[in-house]
């Protein structure tokens, strides 16, 4: 039998132990120190200016060709959404074929091949929002991959190893932005990788090159002189679905509250 005195003593001891600030237990991490001091390596980020996008879909086309995602397959590494907000504060959204051919019809697609007409006089506002992988700083897709086929590089880009992915689809389920899909040819998980083969050679991504309106830009967050970094640091930028704690690294200028 435990007496009351010992019980109280032990309880206090345990409570005291638990109250020890967890930070005191944090181990010294040389990598973190290095990252704070040496800011030389890149951290790729993306800047989307929704005020400039006209929904032409050239970026989607360019991406499909560059990254060999079958042109007619109904999946795409990047896409553009159209938002039509009417005066009854309803939002109509669509993205026919990911806007590969832009928005050839005025009517909004609502699935099952059906269309919905939105009259001009009801329109309150309308705009386009390009989407792509957010190269999250805390990527759930990397966390859930059972074999480590999805991984994050030092410069922040999340990649998929095509020779190692087993095709379980867990990462597709784990991404809150719905950017992942199974590649119809390789049968492994696929998504935007910021054209890693291009940016690591100092080039622009295919979508940035295809955009005639300057709505898309890529930059290096660790370089204070980078024009994209300057915009992100000084202007009011937004990210998508912040509430998931994924720390997305695609920043939006002029993001509207209707954007999902």
């Amino acid at each position: 039998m435990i007496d009351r005195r010992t019980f109280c003593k032990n309880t206090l001891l345990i409570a005291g132990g638990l109250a020890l600030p967890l930070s005191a237990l944090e181990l010294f991490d040389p990598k973190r120190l290095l990252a704070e001091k040496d800011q030389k390596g890149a951290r790729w980020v993306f800047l989307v200016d929704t005020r400039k996008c006209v929904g032409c879909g050239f970026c989607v086309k360019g991406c499909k060709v560059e990254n060999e995602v079958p042109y007619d397959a109904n999946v795409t590494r990047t896409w553009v959404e159209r938002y039509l907000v009417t005066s009854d504060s309803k939002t109509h959204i669509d993205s026919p074929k990911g806007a590969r051919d832009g928005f050839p019809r005025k009517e909004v697609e609502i699935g099952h091949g059906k269309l919905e007409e939105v009259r001009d006089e009801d329109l309150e506002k309308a705009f386009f929002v390009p989407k792509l992988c957010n190269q999250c700083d805390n990527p759930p897709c990397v966390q859930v991959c059972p074999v480590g086929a999805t991984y994050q590089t030092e410069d922040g880009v999340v990649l998929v190893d095509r020779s190692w992915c087993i095709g379980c689809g867990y990462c597709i389920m784990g991404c809150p932005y719905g950017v992942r899909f199974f590649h119809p040819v390789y049968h492994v998980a696929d998504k935007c990788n910021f054209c890693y083969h291009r940016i690591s050679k100092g080039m622009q991504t295919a979508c940035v090159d295809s955009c005639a309106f300057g709505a898309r830009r890529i930059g290096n967050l660790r370089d204070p002189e980078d024009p994209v970094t300057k915009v992100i640091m000084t202007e009011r930028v937004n990210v998508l679905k912040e509430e998931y704690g994924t720390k997305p690294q695609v920043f939006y200028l002029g993001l509207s509250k209707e954007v999902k």
Partner: protein
Amino acid sequence: MVHGEAWTLKEFFTYPNEYIYWTIQIVMYPFMTGLVAGAFVLSSLYHVFGVKQLKGIARFSLVFSFALLPVAMLPLMLHLQQPLRGIEVMLTPHFTSAIAAFGIVFTTYGMIVASELWFVYRKHFVETALALKAKERRGAGEQFACLLFSALTMGAYDVSHEALEADERAVKKLAAAGIPVACFLHGYAGFIFGSVKANALWMTPLMPVIFICSAVVSGIALCILTYIVTMEIRKALAARRPELPSKEELKSAESQVVVMTSRYLLMFMVAAITLELLDLVFRGYTAVKSWDILRSVIYERDFVNIFVVQYGLGNLVPLVLFLVPGLTIRRAILGTALVLLGVFMMRWNVVIGGQAFSSSFSGFMHYTLPIWPDSMETFKEGLGGALLVAVVPFCLFWILNKVMPVFKETH
């Protein structure tokens, strides 16, 4: 055609890459692992807690659990886009992933059940091996059986009283160790879903517990059902084979076991339903951002699946059937079949229902189960694949029963 397009219908705005990626095989996966875990827990009730009334079904459910075990892997393999690489989960486990633990937990559990079975059947192995060895002339079949049983004894031929008692102690220990592992095996199947923060329906810490409870329910129900069926077969055989117990003996043994086991079934059912309802009420009460779309899925689109089939037919009706006194075998058959349907629908509503709405919260997706396959893909992820998974454990059970007869007295 891209993966998923063949069976996904989209409505309103969904992201272009969104399809129903996890199909019927992923429904079968937690359903089958649930049966494994449930059957094992049932057998442990006798071996560990000494619930004497369950003796008749304990050995039966242990063997059955072992027959179900390999089948828990099958749906996963059928579902992978690169099935030949499946082994990589064991070779390069990535421990932040809930699926990565599967191989380890699964193997541990398999070894526990296998060794428990060995201790339970050691005497039988020894006796059979010795009897076969004593025979002067053996046919090819007997020769094979002789080799098999000799191998199964693993050289331990001691069947003295002390040795058998040691066996029994080992069984008890293994059964005790098996309970947490079985619960873990299934609890973490729930965790696989519960930890997906991108999915509003799955994201709940209750998921593992809900899965464990309904797993035990489904395991017990299946054991009762198959027990009844095998007993009926034995009854039919009893007339022709004099070595079997008489028809009347079988009958009374059967109804006693069924009545006792269904009490435990009831207990776990109440726990499972309570948890599920708690989850539902909690979501409605807290009504976070995703509640709007969840509500329209739960109360409108999936109303029939959830409230009519799962809760009504799968929970309420069997509850009444089992609660009315004087349980008959026929009523038990109907009840357990409905319970199985209910648990299957629960898995369906979680897996398919969880993908019924887009992460954009402004569109819906509908899964049309491929019935007539027109490609390997639609076979694997359609009715054919599901039936294949459902049939295999019964075939395995039939084979296992030849080696480890569930009804023969061993100790």
